[in-house]
């Protein structure tokens, strides 16, 4: 394409407008929230998760049945039959109540598991990153060896030693999945340690609390939060997986995983038994993943505009 001189017009230089601050100044968090709000998938995810959480708390009270209350006269009822909104299972227990009890357990496992992974990750990764050098080297070697052991083997063996139970499941899952979090924490700390802006801020006279709050935390915590948001659906998935293997939470407690596993056996005759837990699991995992993706984009300091 030909460019001719007369296509351009000199508009001169205006020194005052060159120094105008173009964007409103926001803190890191305000900017991140603003970016997150613009992401439709993330917003939908938040709404879904809010719905699931509210129902997890209030759902079981919305029907007059207890979650382990059996009614052997009305087994495998279809949804809508005889006052059971979502039907009943093979022992006549109301599915609506059980689904939301399941929500409590599954979400609890997800959140607690992720939280434990966070703690262990911060401690292990923090020490490795902060000390650096030999300590870091050894710690990472150990992790490498641990990683080669198939996680399934470890999970199953842990559960068999500790016996069935809610706590066992949580521990087994977090004990096999803390390593990525530790890696991220370590990476972040190593990165920030070398940064010059920390030195610069100190030189300008920033107080330690300002240093930590305004500089260290925003740069370290982003990937950690993102990883946390992905740990949760992972935990939910493994809980369901273990339930299918017969190693989930014991009866009469119900988690989405155990409900799905039970429903699986009768899928041909009574599909509603597996359909609802399966939808619940998928919705939850999908939402957490979308939220995680959105958070990853929103919290990336390099994308600040």
């Amino acid at each position: 394409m030909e460019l001719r001189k007369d296509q351009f017009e000199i508009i001169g230089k205006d020194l005052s407008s060159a120094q105008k601050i173009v964007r409103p100044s926001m803190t890191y968090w305000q900017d991140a929230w603003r970016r997150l709000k613009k992401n439709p998938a993330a917003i939908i995810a938040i709404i879904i998760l809010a719905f699931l959480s509210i129902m997890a708390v209030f759902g079981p009270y919305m029907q007059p049945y207890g979650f382990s209350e059996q009614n052997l006269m009305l087994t495998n009822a279809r949804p809508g039959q005889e006052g059971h909104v979502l039907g009943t299972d093979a022992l006549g227990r109301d599915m609506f109540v059980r689904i939301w009890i399941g929500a409590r357990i599954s979400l609890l496992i997800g959140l607690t598991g992720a939280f434990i992974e966070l703690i262990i990750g911060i401690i292990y990764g923090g020490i490795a990153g902060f000390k650096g050098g030999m300590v870091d080297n050894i710690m990472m070697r150990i992790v490498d060896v641990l990683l080669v052991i198939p996680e399934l083997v470890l999970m199953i063996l842990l559960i068999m030693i500790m016996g069935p139970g809610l706590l066992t499941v949580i521990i087994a899952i977090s004990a096999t999945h803390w390593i990525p979090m530790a890696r991220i924490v370590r990476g972040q700390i190593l990165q920030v340690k070398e940064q010059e802006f920390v030195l610069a801020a100190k030189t300008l006279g920033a107080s330690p609390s300002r240093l930590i709050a305004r500089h260290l935390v925003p740069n370290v915590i982003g990937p950690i939060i993102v990883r946390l948001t992905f740990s949760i659906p992972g935990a939910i998935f493994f809980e369901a997986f273990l339930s299918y293997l017969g190693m989930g939470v014991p009866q009469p407690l119900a988690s989405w995983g155990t409900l799905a596993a039970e429903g699986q056996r009768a899928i041909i005759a009574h599909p509603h038994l597996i359909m609802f837990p399966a939808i619940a699991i998928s919705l939850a995992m999908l939402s957490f993943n979308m939220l995680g993706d959105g958070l990853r984009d929103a919290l990336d300091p390099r994308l600040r505009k």
Partner: protein
Amino acid sequence: MKRLLTAVVTVWVVVTLTWFMMQAIPGDPFQNEKRVIPEIKEALRKYYGLDKPLIEQYGIYMKNLVTGKFGMSFQYKNRTVNDIIKNGFPYSADLGMRAVAFGFIIGISLGIVAALNHNKGWDRFSIMVAIIGVSIPGFVIAALLQWTLGVKLKILPVAQWKGFMYTIMPVFALSLGMIAQVARFMRSSMLDVIGQDYIKTAKAKGLPTLRIVWNHEIRNAILPVVTILGPWIAFVITGAFVVETIFAIPGLGKFYVQSINMQDYTLISGITAFLGVIMVVMNLVVDIVYGLIDPRIRLDE
């Protein structure tokens, strides 16, 4: 060479760990037997060597393992663990290999097509597939498929493993997660490669598009994807357990689940050790393959 050594050490760790943990499990392996007189129980314990000190038991275990004897199953009175593994493994291996092959090929193809049609139809489709594959657990998909295609529409058989038609649903369900990840990786890898200068050079040289795509773009983009193959094979193996249970495929997974429910220790530890070894070996193979196909690594070594 170092990799081989690490693999061997890991196998040893896995096996020993399995054995230790089996010992730590509370409960008597014979508690499922109905009313066994104490004397007979003692005799059984002697037979299985359970009354010897732990170190000796470990020594015997390792010696047996090395010679390939996994011991007798507690549950199936007349079959050795070897037999069970030998019978079940081919099915699982068949399912697993098909799933990995299918997953890899489809995943790569989807990734390539998506990258070549950046932000257009195929790209959006592959992103959707990626999201679904990662979010919806394999067994949910399996159950869904089983119900819609098997029961409602009756086009595919619901269970078992007796012919090609039987393989379609299980393989698909098992590979979906892999397809999603591989496609995602391949897509971003391809996009990276396409933006590289040497591609510009190739286009400037006037090479036909097909040649560019095949000889340059795909070859370079595939490398990072191979690195995730290893962990994914392990994942497919574990996923196979659930798929086998759902589709009633007589593979190792089904026996494994059963043995856990029945507390059949020798079978559990046998299969665990076996699977552990397989996973480590597969990781090693993938590592070596990657070393072979990446010319940069070859030059370094």
